[in-house]
Each structure stands twice: as structure tokens, then as C-alpha cells.
């Protein structure tokens, strides 16, 4: 399983994501710099959380126009798995790889807490190792996690089974409780909660591990 994690100026969960991936995948994760215009050959690319470019203009907006993102888009078109977490999710929507957008939380404040989620589909390389309709706990930590999209898009996401995770207790006002969405081809996932922070019992939970296990079983077939 070959994996890479991209670092943008202002990324701050890049190490956390690489550590979690390395623990589950059992081999080193490549680190890629935002100014690179090529990705190494990999099976999965992680776009980590943080505040790329300070979240200025709109969260993820500037990172979405960086050289590496063009390479990520090409990789996604080739079928490489792309996982965007938190700021990574914002970047993927800004880049047009995923529908919708993430705006300021309804409560206006940053929110850092553990939330309960439902795994809304197991039909994806990111969620296949979870039991169907599993209820899991993952941390969220964001200021702009309020998922918005127009009604047709939301209906289409539901009809096509592209909602990966839903909040059971919506912390940010997201439309229809959406915490994570898939692209049509199902090889790109964006999610606000942090599975990489829930891969170690010492950190308070392990519900993130099946996400990385899913990738391992789906991609190393």
C-alpha cells in the first residue's frame, strides 16, 4: 500500500495523518510538498487538516489552486484514492473534486469535541471495513465545517449513496447532517471529522482505524 500525504503551508495535521496511515498500512508514507507538480506513484493520497494559507479568502481556496492539486486531480481521474480530512475536505470541494462547500459553523465558534457519526454507506474503499450503519465516535475540530449544497445536489448525493458519514448530533449545521461525501466514482472522500485522531486507544478512541483498514483491503486486492 503506497500512500502520500500532502503538506501545504499551514497544514497542521499532516504528521498526524501520516502517523495513523503508517500504523495501519505498515509502511512509510511519502510526504509531498504543495509546490511539487507531480505526485509519486501511490494508491492513496491524504489531504490533511489544518489552516492551509491561513484559511484566508475561503478555507481551502488557495490550496485548491496550488500545483500539487492539479496532480491530485489527475490522480483522482486515474482512480487513485483521495482522502481529504477537515481542511482537506474544504480543499477538495474548492478544487471541484467534491460537490458542495463548507461555510462557517452555525454556532460561529470553532468546535473541538468528539461526535457520534453514522457510517452512512459501506460501499466505498474508505468505509467497507465498517459494519453497515455503524455508529462511531470521531473528533471534530473546525471553524468552517457547515456543509452546504443546493437541494438537487443533496438529493443526488442521497440517491447515489454518496454520503459517507452523517452526524448524529450535528455540531456545525451541515445540510442533512452530512459529515463526509464521496465523488461519483467513489474514489474521493472528503470528511470533516478526524479519523487519524482516533487510531490509538491512548488518545481516547479507535473508531478511525477501520477507515484506513478499508483502504488497505480495498486497494491491495
Amino acid at each position, binding site marked *: 500500500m503506497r500512500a502520500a500525504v500532502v503538506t501545504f*503551508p*499551514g497544514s*497542521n*495535521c499532516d*504528521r*498526524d495523518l501520516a*502517523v*495513523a496511515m503508517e500504523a495501519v498500512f505498515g509502511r512509510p508514507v511519502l510526504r509531498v510538498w504543495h509546490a511539487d507538480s507531480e505526485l509519486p506513484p501511490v494508491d492513496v493520497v491524504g489531504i490533511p*487538516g*489544518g*489552516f492551509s*494559507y*491561513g*484559511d*484566508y479568502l475561503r478555507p481551502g481556496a488557495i490550496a485548491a489552486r496550488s500545483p500539487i492539486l492539479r496532480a491530485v486531480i489527475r490522480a483522482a481521474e486515474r482512480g487513485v484514492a483521495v482522502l481529504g480530512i477537515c481542511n482537506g475536505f474544504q480543499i477538495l470541494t474548492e478544487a471541484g473534486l467534491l460537490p458542495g462547500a463548507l461555510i462557517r459553523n452555525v454556532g460561529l*465558534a*470553532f*468546535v*473541538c*469535541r468528539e461526535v457520534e457519526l453514522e457510517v452512512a454507506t459501506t460501499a466505498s474503499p474508505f468505509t467497507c471495513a465498517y459494519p453497515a450503519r455503524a455508529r462511531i465516535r470521531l*473528533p471534530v*475540530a473546525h*471553524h468552517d465545517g457547515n456543509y452546504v449544497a443546493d437541494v438537487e445536489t443533496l438529493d443526488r448525493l442521497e440517491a447515489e449513496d454518496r454520503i459517507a458519514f452523517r452526524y448524529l448530533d450535528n455540531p456545525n449545521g451541515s445540510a442533512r447532517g452530512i459529515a463526509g461525501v464521496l465523488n461519483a466514482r467513489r474514489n474521493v472522500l472528503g470528511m470533516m471529522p*478526524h479519523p*487519524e*485522531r482516533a487510531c*490509538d486507544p*491512548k*488518545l*481516547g478512541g479507535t473508531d478511525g482505524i477501520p477507515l484506513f483498514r478499508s483502504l488497505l483491503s480495498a486497494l491491495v486486492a
Partner: protein
Amino acid sequence: MNGEVRITPELVAEHGLTAEEYARILEILGREPNLVELGIFAVMWSEHCSYKSSKTHLAKFPTTAPWVICGPGENAGVVDIGDGLAAVFKMESHNHPSFIEPYQGAATGVGGILRDVFTMGARPVALLDALRFGDPAHPRTRWLVSGVVAGIGGYGNCVGVPTVGGETTFHRAYDGNILVNVMCVGIAPADRVFYARAAGVGNPVVYVGAKTGRDGIHGATMASAEFDERSEEKRPTVQVGDPFTEKLLIEACLELMASDCVVAIQDMGAAGLTSSSCEMAARGGTGIELDLDAVPLREEGMTAYEIMLSESQERMLLVLREGREDQARRIFAKWDLDFAVIGKVTGSGRLVARHGGRTVVDVPVAAVSGASPVYDRPFELPAPAAPYDPDERVDRIAADEALLRLLGSPDLASRRWIYEQYDYMVMADTVQRPGGDAAVVRIHGSNRGLALTTDCTPRYCAADPRTGGCQAVAESYRNLTAVGARPLAITNCLNFGNPERPAIMGQLVAAIEGMSEACRALDYPVVSGNVSLYNETMGRAILPTPQVGGLGLVEDLDRMVGIAWSEEGLRLLLVGDTVGWLGCSLFLRELFGLEAGAPPPVDLAAERRHADFVRGCIAAGLVRACHDLSDGGLAVAVAEMCLASGGGARIHLPPRVGLRNAWLFGEDQARYLLAVAPHTVGELARRAAAAGVPMVEIGDTGGDALILGDARPISLAVLRRAHEAWFPRYMEG
């Protein structure tokens, strides 16, 4: 231009310098200073930079121990934490700026303390914030709380350093002067700690980070001047922070420090370029020559005065090894940060700056930085408060009602509203989250951890600053012990009123003595700190607040404990003596409106004995959960443990308890509450007896209610509502 301004007595006074201080400047220079030089002396001799009122007393702090690598005097303190690593930590105040502009004031406070830590080569791994606000009913309080918390989160979250703990209390004495004290902890290789000593004549002096603007000019003198109605006019001195640039600066500096390019490095904090260059040269016994035309500027037409005194954020000053400029420049270019060679190290012992072809500064650094005035200000030690003698009236309120009211009071209500705005998990090493005693962050890649806490009980310090100072140290020691950590050292921030008043000076002196005594008795030295004086508004001072930040080491995270238990049927053991001390207690204040009596005495020998006992039991795996007893006493501690555990408990009152509420809510020191498995009670009792530690079994865990003796059971749901409701409801307005 600058040279032509006439230095009048008014101008000298406006710079906060006394006539005697000015005479001293004339003597040092052998001539009149120009305006730039006057500004330099003013900031360097301000209370904030020179510690002129506190220096002689700060010398009483014990600052050494075998594990101390670097004590006070550098940007931060450094202690050995084993495995070739060092912890670097410090606390700093940003009180005045936060009162004027709470968001930016608090945010730039976080930025400043982060720089103090990574400037020593340490990667910051945790932040804590100790906050004191005015009366919740004061019209400004809500706005201040909301701005300060958002500002701390806004900065810390963005740079990606977890904010893992802190303190928040309210008292009307802070109505006009809130306190925002932020502590930062970093980890560095023990043999690669960087110091701010400019060495090597001819080595280049390099400016990196953000550009210089007209931010906060005279911020340092503002931080030392008492507030008055005119402080509104001082508004433009507020700086705006850019955490994104800070994040880049952390990465770039740490990358550079991993090479061997750096001779010395210092952040530009209060008094910016002036203090960083003077202090680096003074510490190194060298001089520095600066070319102000080379300083990256954000605005046009900035004068030498403005460039030297700007407090623009996110800037650092470096001395590089000669010839390494290009290697360093490439690293900063990669991180998109300004990089400019702006001068060189000289052997002259002078700070010389040129601007527009003219010499605009030429002052001896030792005199500016080292020989600042020192005041042995007159002080009056406060008369000790008479002890409060409770009578049966304190028992007229039912224990369950008293507990619910206390838990829902501003000082004890859950701080969830605050800490959920902080990313306390980023870096994926937070193994004890906010809400318990000490926070614990894992030392990355190991099974060891750093335990961190901030403590001070200002109401004790107001009644008796000596005992209060002692108690603040002891409480931090207990909080570290309660998770199983070995306390190593403290940082501190001494927040007081106007030291020119003997009564205030007396508080400062007594608090320092109390802290020193505790540090000495507990082998728990002071390695860094900060002093914030003149916290007064129109003659009304804050409560004396000697804030302590403690750091301890957890050797084996598998043996760490928290305040939550996970089983029913555990036994609750109370460690320490309970006489039922109600003087200065929250119980008296919240339920009887009384701020009366003397604070609970601190027996340092008992603190040490009890802590060693508790730590030993935790290390032996005998303890399932542990909480130290502080505000609100036993009843509040057990309630907090129930809430964290999601389970109930029953407390049995001892047979001849005297005043029930004194026993339940008294704030006697050196106490812990342990939850242990029933079959280990005998072993624990043997250990306690052998160590001479008083310990009694007072209850057990189970059910879904908390039962205090024969009081009505309080269901967990009711308890939780009481604890969680106040903060969000208050903030909603």
C-alpha cells in the same frame, strides 16, 4: 529628522521615564539622547522589559535542580526530561492589550509565548491559558470572555499547537484589568537548545518573518502604565497577529536550527528590534550594528524611531555563522518568509543603527539592557487575616443544595464552552484532555508524557499573599501528582497592581516568599516567568495573582490516571487531613456572600509526603482514578469525578464530623481523593501508615446518583445540568 527633535522634560515624561532615570541616561551617554535613543531607553527601562521593581525579590526564587538545564534569564526555562530531550516552557501575560482588544490581544499573547519557546529550538507541543475576568455581571465581561477565548483559539488552532488546559475565574477586582496569561511548552533535543547570545564578531545579523509596520509602537511602555481614562487614546498600539505566518516561522526556524547555521536567535517581542538586538548583544558581551534601511517594511516612510520600536508580530532576529546566509535564505524562501541581512555582530559593546546614511542610534548595550534602574521599593507586608470560625449556621443549607449551587457557580461551572473552542487534540498526542487535573501530552513517539497545569487561587492571595503564593505552587504540584507525574519545575506570571504603593509591593514580596518557600520544600524550582505590574484602574488593583504553571513527567503512560473511573464498586479513599477549613472558601463566598477569614494553611512537609505517597500508589498500579481537592473541597471533587466517569458515588460522613458542610466543602490542603479496587484497600492502608499519611475510606462508586451522607441523592443528570448550564447560558446573554 529624529535627531532634530528637542528632548524636553515633557517628552521624557511621556516616555514614562522619571527625571532621575533621564539623568542616568545623560550620564551613560555623556550627551543628550536623540529621540530614537530616548525611545530605546524608555522601552528597555520600562517595568515590562527591565523588571526594575521586582528584580531584587525575584532573586529569592530557587532556580536550580539537577534536571534544570537553563533557569530564568533566557527566553524560556529548560529542563531535562530524559531520553536526550528537554522541555522548554514559559508563561507570559498579555493583560492590557487583551483588555483593549480582547481577540487580537489574546491572540498575539499566544503568538509571543510560542516564539519564546521555538526560539530556543523547541517544537511547541502545548499551550495553556490562565484567565481572570471581572464580575460576570459587569457590562464588559461577556464581551471580553468571548473575545479572549476566540483569540486564543484563533491563534493556537491555526498554528496547530493544542491548547490543553488553563484556568478561568471571575472576580469584580478584575473588572477594569483582566488577566490573560498564556503558557507554552516545547520539546527540543537536550543538546541542541539555542540561546540568544550574539557571538562572533563579523557574523551577520538576520531579520526573518513578517514585515515591520507601525504596530504597537510603545506597546511595552503601555503594558507598564497604569490604566486611566486616557487609555482609549492608546488604542492604535494594539497589534494584529497572523498565526499563519507564525506557523511558517516555526517550521522555517526549526528547519534552520537543524542545520548548523545559527549562532543565536531571539524573537522580537515587546520593544521589537530594540530589545532583541540589545539583549542578544548584552548576553553575548558583544555589540550589534544595524542598517535600518535593510529592514523589510510594510509601510512607506517609516522613521528610525518607528522601525526600532515597532511591535509587529511574527518576526525573529538571528545571528548566523558567516557565509551561511544563502543556505538560510533558501529555507526562508521555501516558507515564503522575508529574510534580510540587516547588520553584523561587533566587538564594540554598542548598539549602533544607521538609517538614510546617518547614525541614528549609538548606545552601550550593557547599560541599556543590564544596567537598567533597579528599585528597592518600600513595602508593607499585609497583616495576616484572622481565621474564620464557622458555627452551626453553615449547616443550615442542605449539602445537596449547596453542592448544586457551587457546581453551577461561575468559578466552578464546566469550562467546556471555553475548551471546545480550542483544538486540544491537534498533534495527536493529547492523552489527558481539558477537564481533569493536569493535562498530559505524550512525548511524540514514546510512552512517556508531560503533565501540565496552571494554578493560583487569588482569593487566598488577597487574604494572605504569602500563604497564597505557597498554595499556588502546592496546588500545581498536586495537580501534576494526581495524574501520576513527577513534578519537575514551574514557570510563573506575577500579576499585581501598582508597585509604587507599599501595600501592593508588600503583596508581591510576600507572594514571592511564599512561592519560594514552597518551591524549595518541594524541590520544584522556578525556571522562567514574567511579571505584570500596574494592573490597576483608577487606584483599584486586581487581586494579587501569582500565576503558576507547572510541568511534570509521566514516565509510563500505561500507569497514568485521570479523574474518571470506569467501574462500579470501587472504594473512595481520602488522603490528607480534613479539619473543615472554610476561611476564604468558595462555599462561604457563593452561599453566604462572605469573602472572609484566612486561607487554608499549607503544610509543605505534608504536601510532599502525601504527594509521594499518591504518586507511589499510582506507579504501583493501585489507583483507578485520582483527583486533588481544591476549590469547593471534597464534595466538589467527588462530583467532578462522577461527572467525568458518568457514574454515581456514595459518601459516608465520618461519625463525629462536627460541621457537616465544613467537612464536605472545606478547602484543607494536601488532599487527594482516590478510587481504588476493594481488594487493594488493605495494601494502600499499609502503605499510608508506613508513610505517615492520613487516609480514610469515605465511600464507594456506583449507581447513577451522588449521595452525600444523608442528604438527598443527586442524580447524575441533575448534577450535569448544574455543572454544564452556567457557561453557555451566560455567554448567550
